């Protein structure tokens, strides 16, 4: 039992470390204070092209497809090492995480030749058009209508919470193609050009102030049938495959918020009497126990990956714990500071790991990518094997329920 890399893993880690260190001076955002989002995106595209050139954009894919032909563990190692820096790669996370693997799996050879490499190189960005105002956790309830018209389909309706739709060139979309059959049996899946006439993207301002989520409106948008992925009315299977692609993300037990030891230093330095208080010490100990549990759980999952097993649905527990912990912990840090805990520092650009920002963001983190409640269902039903909840609309034609 140990936390060590195998010799092969260690060698790969060294290669990655060396390469990233070379890129850092030019591409690490810490060296670009005050760079706006457009500037970050331009820098990110440049970095992404270099990354793809080494096969690091998809470590696990074959070289023919633009990857490196590496193992799942090498893929994790690359991500772990990249995490030590702040490269502007956030724009490509969704694109390469879900839509692009689905294109690889379901598109024609010709389409793959056309689309995969530009996405890997960051020249084109893809978004995922899934949720709708009336269909969030229950993705099977989507309504955006697709009606066949000759060789095309005509799309009408609305999508929401689409990350980075405003900078995306293409998107994958799940639609309602037959409302006369039960919900999961009448969906079709396409990819669309985001520049198509009839598509309107409006960024949504989120509760914490950020704006990377969008609403996307479809008005008589024509999509050629060649852009259908999967069977007609077989879109649910493709949608599930998309969600299963969510790669095994590098886990930060602090959830992007302040690191525990940094918090302890901060409190000791600015609030010595609070730091000495026994109740503070007990809280810090509790947080450390939770953080250590997540890190050690992750080490166990990685051990499986290192031995060639991919993690199952139990991996859902990390986000469930991290999001809630982030919310409780950042609120407690504000409490330490008293009324001043609500006051932002003077710096113009707040780091996302500022505890005040983390507290605001945490409320959304508990919802995004699977709410706390849905994750508990996943664990209960898919890990523990408990019976599914009642689903009264499951076997009834969609239009009768909606």
């Amino acid at each position, binding site marked *: *039992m140990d*936390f060590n890399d195998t010799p092969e893993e260690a060698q790969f880690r060294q290669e990655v470390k060396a390469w990233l260190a070379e890129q850092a001076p030019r591409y690490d955002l810490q060296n670009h204070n005050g760079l706006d989002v457009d500037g970050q995106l331009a820098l990110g595209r440049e970095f992404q092209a270099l990354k793809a050139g080494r096969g690091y954009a998809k470590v696990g894919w074959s070289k023919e497809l633009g990857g490196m032909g590496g193992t799942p563990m090498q893929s994790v190692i690359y991500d772990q090492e990249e995490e030590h820096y702040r490269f502007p790669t956030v724009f490509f996370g969704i694109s390469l995480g879900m839509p692009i693997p689905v294109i690889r799996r379901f598109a024609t050879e010709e389409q793959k030749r056309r689309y995969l490499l530009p996405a890997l190189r960051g020249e084109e960005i893809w978004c995922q058009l899934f949720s709708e105002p009336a269909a969030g956790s229950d993705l099977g309830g989507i309504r955006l209508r697709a009606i066949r018209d000759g060789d095309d389909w005509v799309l009408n309706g609305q999508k929401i919470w689409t990350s980075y739709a405003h900078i995306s060139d293409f998107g994958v979309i799940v639609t309602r193609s037959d409302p006369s059959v039960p919900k999961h049996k009448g969906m079709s899946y396409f990819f669309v050009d985001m520049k198509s006439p009839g598509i309107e993207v409006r960024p949504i301002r989120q509760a914490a102030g950020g704006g990377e989520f969008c609403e996307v409106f479809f008005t008589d948008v024509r999509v050629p049938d060649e852009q259908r992925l999967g069977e007609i009315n077989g879109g649910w299977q493709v949608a599930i495959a998309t969600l299963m692609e969510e790669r095994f993300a590098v886990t930060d037990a602090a959830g992007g918020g302040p690191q525990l030891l940094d918090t*302890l230093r901060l409190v000791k330095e600015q609030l010595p009497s609070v730091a000495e208080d026994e109740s503070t010490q007990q809280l810090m100990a509790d947080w450390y126990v939770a953080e250590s549990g997540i890190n050690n759980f992750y*080490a166990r999952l990685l*051990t499986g990956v290192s031995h060639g097993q991919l993690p199952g649905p139990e991996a859902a*527990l990390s986000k469930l714990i991290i999001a809630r912990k982030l919310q409780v912990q950042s609120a407690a840090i504000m409490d330490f500071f008293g009324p001043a805990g609500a006051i932002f520092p003077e710096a113009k650009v707040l780091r996302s790991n500022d505890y005040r920002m983390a507290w605001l963001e945490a409320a959304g983190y508990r919802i995004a990518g699977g709410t706390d409640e849905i994750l*508990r269902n996943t*664990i209960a039903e898919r890990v523990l094997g408990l019976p599914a909840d009642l689903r009264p609309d499951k076997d009834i034609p969609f239009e009768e329920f909606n």
Partner: protein
Amino acid sequence: MNFDFSDSQKELQGEVHRFLRDRCDLSVAREVLDDENLTHASRLWREITELGWCGVAIPEEYGGISLGYLELCVIAEEVGRSLSPVPYSSSIYQFAEALLKGGSHEQKEAFLPRVAGGELVGTLAFCEGPGFPQAQTLKAQFDSGRLTGEKWPVADAMIADAAVVLAADAAGSPCLCIVNLDQDGVSREQLASIDPTRNQGKLTFEGVEAEPLLQGDGDGWALFRQVLNSAAVLFSFEQIGGADACLNQAVAFASERHAFGRPIGAFQAVKHKLADVYVANQLARSNAYYGAWALATGDSALPLAAAVSRVSATSAYENAASESLQVHGGMGFTWEADCHLFLRRSRSLSLCLGRADLWKKQIAAALEQKVA
């Protein structure tokens, strides 16, 4: 990354699991619970000692088989899962640990082969009634080779042949000394407890012969803390084994029991509760592995890892045991249902090495060092 037990350790765990499943279903713990004259399951204990489980972490030169702590951890998990009413924890995690950490070569030679072979049961006697012992206020006295005082509660006091006792030496400093309990001047009294499957007693010493454990830097309190750290990791494996059993029991019941026309496990109020139990159990298991790693490698992080492992396993087991009983409803609160066996054991293991807050202080102290 290789943060898991090895194949041979897992194989050992499988053997231990199958043996205890066959020889120690819950009726064995229940027998001890129901009969106040029984202190433990003596036949099961004999079989366990014959299988050599007592010697896995004891070096060959002292009659053990020198496997190591990781092997001890996987056995502990199964002992906890089956609620085995045997003095394994007292004799191995505490008494043998104290000797291994603080005994002289002669002391080890005198006791460890008999512990490894199961001929001798040992225990660790540190409490003196209410509260957790403090270094400065120990009442038991050890002076000129003689021990005087009262220790209670002491786990397995009624069946132990020898004890390592925490006492104040002539200078008033804490020390650990080893006492043969089969001598004049030692008396024992059985104490009734919430968990009769681990017997508890009071030991009274009236100027009896004892020998100090003096290895290390001679700091008796530090030695005692070291023993507690080892025991904390090993007990946390008993706790995660028990917590796992509680969850399995609750999931099985919630899948079978129907109310309002559905299995109760289909209701989110029940399934979310069980998902939370699963999550807490997984975090506790992960932290216990961290404790096991630190114990096995002798890493300097052991005080932190042991405390994290203990706090995590303690809350996971108590939560799993009480929520499992809750899911079983009124049936769960009957004497016949097994839920209360786990409820009792979970509480008694939470208490046996001091409350969680004391271990959290140990975590806080380690964090202080990290930022100092």
